[in-house]
């Protein structure tokens, strides 16, 4: 439901490296994207593609060291989140940008009641009194569909099931009416029925509250059902970026094409084997010098090993980082 063109969040050339004993791992390489008001941006990619690291870099949630943000700009609310002082950044975290993490089993503090943990950001960012925070906490639990909310506020995380805990996490992220919600694989640790419930809940909440959402997942099925736009990441780079229908009907990057082929179909004959992409995702030590996907790419060309492809526009807000769509290369070949 994008309702305009002003981006609430605009990321330019974000670069994050991890200093390890084996050298510098370039986890995020020149990632740029923007998020419009009320829009749901899906971010897909396999494990280690830099999805989570990108999002955590935005809010300074990575441990420094070993992580280090090398460059880029994260414009939000008229300020660069990478430049503002820690105190101002803390006001953005949890206040204007909510974050839901992957594993609901460990993401809540086991020794505090759920009510306390929801009330914490309310009291800090909205300056609510203890009483007002308790009332709002109850509303939030009801909003995310936890029955008997009043009572459950007094319970500890271990008294909740995984799905219920993830709802609590969402309630915490939504507590201060954020403009942006970043959900980092929020349904990965949950079983399929609970996953469907959470997805429904998120769609409903987005429509109701009108916030922009970044949804990180490695499940393309989820993305198809929920996202407005999709960003595909590989080896710490954005390899393709398109409106959701465009991406599924007309993928431009060989990686996206391969990824789409791996989705098992329930229609027709049962395939003998699941389709896989051969090879391993790369661990990028040192700054990238070539296309990260070239070793696994069926259409690799000599040029792929010599330089990094930039993101070439292929029309209608669709771009791909592949020399196959590079106007210069295409002209060459033609």
């Amino acid at each position, binding site marked *: 439901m994008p309702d305009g063109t002003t981006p609430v969040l605009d990321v330019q050339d974000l670069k994050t490296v991890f200093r390890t004993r084996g050298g510098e791992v370039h986890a995020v390489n020149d990632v740029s994207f923007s998020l419009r008001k009320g829009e749901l941006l899906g971010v897909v990619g396999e494990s280690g593609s830099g999805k989570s690291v990108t999002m955590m870099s935005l809010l300074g949630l990575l441990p420094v060291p070993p992580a280090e943000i090398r460059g880029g700009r994260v414009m939000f609310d008229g300020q660069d989140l990478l430049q503002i002082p820690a105190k101002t950044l803390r006001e953005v975290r949890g206040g204007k940008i909510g974050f839901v993490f992957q594993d609901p089993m460990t993401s809540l*503090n086991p*020794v505090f009641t759920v009510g306390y943990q929801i009330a914490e950001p309310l009291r800090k960012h909205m300056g609510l009194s203890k009483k007002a925070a308790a009332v709002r906490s109850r509303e939030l639990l009801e909003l995310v569909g936890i029955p008997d909310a009043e009572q459950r506020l007094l319970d500890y995380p271990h008294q909740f099931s995984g799905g219920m805990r993830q709802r609590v996490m969402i309630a915490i992220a939504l507590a201060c009416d954020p403009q942006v919600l970043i959900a980092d694989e929020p349904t990965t640790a949950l079983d399929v029925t609970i996953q469907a419930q959470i997805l429904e809940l998120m769609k409903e909440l987005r429509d109701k509250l009108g916030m922009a959402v970044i949804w990180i997942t490695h499940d393309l099925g989820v993305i198809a059902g929920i996202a407005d736009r999709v960003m595909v990441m590989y080896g710490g780079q954005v390899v393709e970026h398109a409106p959701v229908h465009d991406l599924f009907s007309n993928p431009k990057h060989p990686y996206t094409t391969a990824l789409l082929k791996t989705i098992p179909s329930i229609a027709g004959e049962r395939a003998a084997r699941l389709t896989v992409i051969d090879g391993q995702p790369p661990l990028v030590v040192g700054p990238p010098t070539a296309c990260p996907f070239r070793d696994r790419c069926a259409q690799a060309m000599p040029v792929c090993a010599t330089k990094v492809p930039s993101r070439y526009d292929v029309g209608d807000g669709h771009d791909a980082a592949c020399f196959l769509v590079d106007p210069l290369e295409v002209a060459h070949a033609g």
Partner: protein
Amino acid sequence: MLTFTIRRLLLSIPTLLFIAFVIFMLLELAPGDPMAQMPLTIPPEVKEKMRLALGLGEPWWVRFPLWLKQFFIVEPQYWIDSAFGTNFADGAQRIISFQSRSPVFDTIAQRMPQTLWVVGMSYVVGVLIALPIGIISAYRQYSVFDQTGTFVSMIGFSVPPFFSGVLLIVIFSVQLKWLPSIYDTTHVVNSWDSFVVQLRQMIMPVMVLALQTTAQVSRYMRASMLDNLTQDYVRTARAKGMSESVVVMKHVLRNSMIPVITVIALGIPAIFGGAIITEQIFKVNGLGQLLIIALQGNDIPMVMTITFLLAVLIVMMNLIADVLYGILDPRIRYD
């Protein structure tokens, strides 16, 4: 929680009875004669009569229940009598020391304050130093502070108090002449000056004992903090916009204290054991010294009573540690 505590208290009764029996039998089976230190001029038949007078003529199955009766019935009655002016004890025989022929508990009551001052103070000081060291060492892992802390606690672990104590005496009493080497038990604190004197004589024994405590507790604290600092809920707390002090001192510390509380509670009886040696070195006239003298003189009632009191302390601290565990960690509910 209350039913758990009561159940554990009831369960500790047979435990303590068994411990009492084991201590008694150990002392019974150990070689040694309470009359050994009597002058040689006393004829053997007189010694034999003295032995009978001490009750040593009776077999163990008479003496052990008698000790139990004296410890659990007569002594409490006596203390109630002296507190409220009642007459429950009615002149019943109390536990009497072989050496001094005075009631064991009177001597213990005299010695207790010195030990509590030195041992108790050193434990409080040790823990109060250890907790911040552990927290900072973990939060700034591998910093200069952390490395120094590791080095100091390694010394604390590996240098025994009978060495560090003597070393301190040599440096600060003999060479520099800053502090007294002997703890004066008769010293009465009634003015600022006498308080300073008390403080000066306490510093060295307290520091020797505190070094051990600090070394141990700070290591546990550091390890526990490190465990928790990398947990997912810490990231959640940061993502909620909590300040670093709230994240560390509230979210992480509360979780890290759970195992450390057990270590602190169980360390209390251990420090009493360690104090036995330290008291000897600094000539503190406390319980530890009393125990050593009683052991040397084959003063069985005294040894038996002090050892058993230490056992009670250990059992109680175990119980307290378990209860605190349940209070700090909501995942543990005993009922």
